[in-house]
């Protein structure tokens, strides 16, 4: 602790002031100031969409800031392309390491340098000795675990004589032991006087290794300072919007659960990325599944949807076992899923709106046995286009040319076209504007009235509070607390999502 205090009194290694950035009308960063001194670890915390990754891309020179300037060791740098930031000693270890899988560790590290290999090799050995790392440098990158790959990335940074290291959620894919060894490394780096920006979702880690903390929300830093000045609850508060009390569930009726049979049930459901999940969803109920991206919620939904293997446990739809069925069979049984990544998994961008809305009906006979009945297709498509107020010039408009909100409504429309008993909505309002968001909420409420069971996966706590009849929080693949309607608060959800508390105790 002493050391870092001493360092912070010294000169600042890295400073960014007044950084702003907007994409089109969407302003992502609204004036960011951060600085890191020698031997400091600045923990940068923020929910999904807070603008952290945009900020990092600006620091690395992949994006150009609209305003603001960046200083390294007092010298202003014009980071307009990646090379400049690298040369000035800033190195980012990406969340998913970008190694050359078919090359050895050594080749990976010294790739892109201009010195002689023998010299580089010597330096690499020195660095590895200095910080006491043991890694067989002749192994292929393909055979490394994620933790080891991150080590390689950090070594890459050190070889470049990086004075500022950015670690982007380095622990998200690590086991507990690996996290411990990573922390040791961070301590070593601290002692060497390297400044570290540590991006994370896990509040517990912040108190373990950070010297300073900054919280980002909606493109601004809401809170920053020495870690010793903060408590966990203060950090949680900083993560929440100031008007957080306003978010209220519009319908105040509680569902009367007596005599209701669950529409969908998971029993000790385990798979890749989630473990021992138990939950029930009733007809006409919206179950909020809160947590952070990467907590395992999407993996759980995808496994239910037949996209990955179940390890153990059961999924029951209206009492019938639907575990391990193919996606086609699951759709037929009455479950549909609205994917999180619209572009990657949801939208047929160069197909027209009608084909998009009806794509999950193609395998069935609704639109005709052999031939596609255009009339039926257009009727179904029109039903959702009109019902959801999707703004298009015609049913034959290409869906890729629509706004995010309209695209999302199309994908939701598709999932409803199969007449499901359970709809899993994964981040249904991510990246869409306020008006479209309202429409999507309207659709969800309508579904609820029709008696459809809704699983709402969202990292937007406000959304969970506003819509859910009940909520569970998933943290690192496990359910961490279940909340009844009146117990759901943003603060509670946020705390549990960051691994603090069970979701209800936190007072703010």
């Amino acid at each position, binding site marked *: 602790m002493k050391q870092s205090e001493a360092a912070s009194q010294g000169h600042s290694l890295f400073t960014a002031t007044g950084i702003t950035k907007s994409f089109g009308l969407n302003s992502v960063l609204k004036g960011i100031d951060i600085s890191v001194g020698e031997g400091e670890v600045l923990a940068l915390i923020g929910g999904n969409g807070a603008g952290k990754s945009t900020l990092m891309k600006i620091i690395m020179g992949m994006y150009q800031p609209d305003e603001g300037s960046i200083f390294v060791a007092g010298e202003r740098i014009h980071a307009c*392309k990646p090379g400049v930031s690298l040369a000035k000693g800033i190195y980012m270890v990406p969340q998913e390491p970008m190694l050359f899988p078919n090359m050895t560790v050594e080749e990976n590290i010294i790739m892109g340098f201009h010195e002689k290999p023998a010299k580089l090799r010597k330096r690499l050995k020195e660095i590895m000795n200095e910080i006491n790392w043991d890694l067989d440098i002749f192994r292929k990158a393909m055979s490394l675990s994620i933790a080891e790959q991150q080590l390689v990335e950090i070594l890459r940074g050190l070889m470049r004589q990086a004075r500022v290291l950015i670690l982007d959620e380095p622990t998200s894919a690590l086991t507990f032991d690996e996290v411990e060894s990573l922390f040791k490394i961070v301590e070593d780096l601290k002692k060497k006087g390297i400044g570290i920006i540590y991006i994370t979702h896990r509040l517990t880690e912040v108190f373990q290794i950070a010297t300073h903390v900054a919280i980002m929300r909606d493109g601004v830093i809401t809170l920053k300072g020495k870690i010793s000045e903060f408590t966990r609850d203060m950090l949680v508060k900083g993560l929440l919007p100031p008007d957080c009390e306003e978010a209220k569930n519009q319908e105040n009726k509680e569902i009367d659960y007596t005599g209701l049979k669950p529409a969908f049930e998971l029993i000790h459901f385990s798979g890749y990325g989630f473990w021992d999940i138990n939950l029930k969803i009733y007809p006409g109920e919206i179950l909020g599944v809160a947590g952070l991206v990467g907590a395992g919620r999407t993996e759980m939904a995808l496994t239910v*949807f037949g*996209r990955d293997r179940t390890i153990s446990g059961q999924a029951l739809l209206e009492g019938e076992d639907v575990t391990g069925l193919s*996606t*086609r069979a*699951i*759709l*037929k049984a009455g479950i549909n*899923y609205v*994917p999180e990544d619209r572009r*990657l*998994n*949801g*939208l*047929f*961008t*160069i*197909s*027209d709106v009608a*084909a998009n809305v009806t*794509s*999950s009906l*193609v*395998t069935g006979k609704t*639109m*005709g*046995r*052999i*031939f*596609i009945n255009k009339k039926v297709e257009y009727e179904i498509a*029109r039903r959702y*286009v*009109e019902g959801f*107020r999707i703004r*298009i*010039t*015609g*049913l*034959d*408009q*290409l869906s890729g040319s629509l706004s995010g909100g309209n695209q999302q409504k199309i994908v939701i429309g*598709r999932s409803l076209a199969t007449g499901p008993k359970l709809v899993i909505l994964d981040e249904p309002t991510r990246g869409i504007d306020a008006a479209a968001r309202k429409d999507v909420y309207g659709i969800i409420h309508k579904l609820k009235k029709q008696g459809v069971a809704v699983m709402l996966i969202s990292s937007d706590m406000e959304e969970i509070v506003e819509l859910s009849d009940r909520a569970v929080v998933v943290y690192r693949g496990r359910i961490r607390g279940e909340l009844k309607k009146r117990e759901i608060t943003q603060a509670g959800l946020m705390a549990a999502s960051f691994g603090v508390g069970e979701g209800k105790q936190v007072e703010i």
Partner: protein
Amino acid sequence: MKISFSPRLKQVWKKWEFVLTLIILLEIIIFALKNSKFLMPRVLFGSMNDIISICIISLFVTFVMITGGIDIQAGSIVGLSSIILGVAWQDFGFNIWSASCLAMVAAGVCGGISGFFIAYCGVQPMVVTLGGSFLYTGIGLLVSKLSATESYKGIGGFPEGFLRLSKYRLFGIIPFQVIIFLILAVLAYILLHKTRYGREVFLVGVNQNAAEYSGINTRLIIMSTYVLSAVSASVAGIILTSYLGTAKSDIGATLTLPIITAVVLGGTLSTGGKGSVPGTALAAVAIGTLRFGLPLCFKVSQQYLDIPVGILLLVIIIGRALLNRPGLRVKTVIRGRIPHK
């Protein structure tokens, strides 16, 4: 809310097909002005014989390319089918029509094997069909060894009925092959643009993930397109055998380039998801007209014809690349920075 039925998507398509039609018309006008013999129906239709295989196969290779794949083995399957037909008929006593069916089934199996490797093992289509082109050419040669006839001579002496497949002319003018091509074109059009299967082919090509999420068995669909293109290659092989009067194992060796050219020229996106049967058919006819008209009217030697076809292909793909990325500057790209959209 009003929904206008202004078919924007179709308009875009019509646009490209319109351009192709214009190209064909332009070709015809220029060629006809230069040499009036060009317009004689008998000459015009007679020219179809040389390009009919390309026309037929490219129709179904369109399916493959819409799923994002590629098929460079079709040419070898033409030869394989031809020789299977000949050997089965001459040396194994098959009836000529059942020999034809056998050839088609064998071709389907070959396409299925390649398709399986591509769809279920995840091997690149280019590599599999490259291997396939060696394998099926080789098997064709081996099959020809089963025959009493020397393989370089080819098997001939087919019955009249079979030869009529290519000699018969409707109304004394239109060759029967042309009719087969038209029938197949209509079939392909209906299959691709009107049926559930065709819709699935498109959806798989646009976004395979999203298609999986819609419950479509994307692997089966991908595999099936290779079966289709192989069977069409075998139909082309049968017709070619009838036209030439001999069955040989290497009659399809030079077809790969023109087939891919026809499909790409027809507006099919090589990354998949976009394409149309009319486009391919028109492009095939445009290429055919070019290959036929240039020698007849401008005394361009047959062998030079790869140049105009190659240039046509290059111009089209470069033009599309430039149109799609207006901000492209050579310097920035060479420096290793890929402009994002």
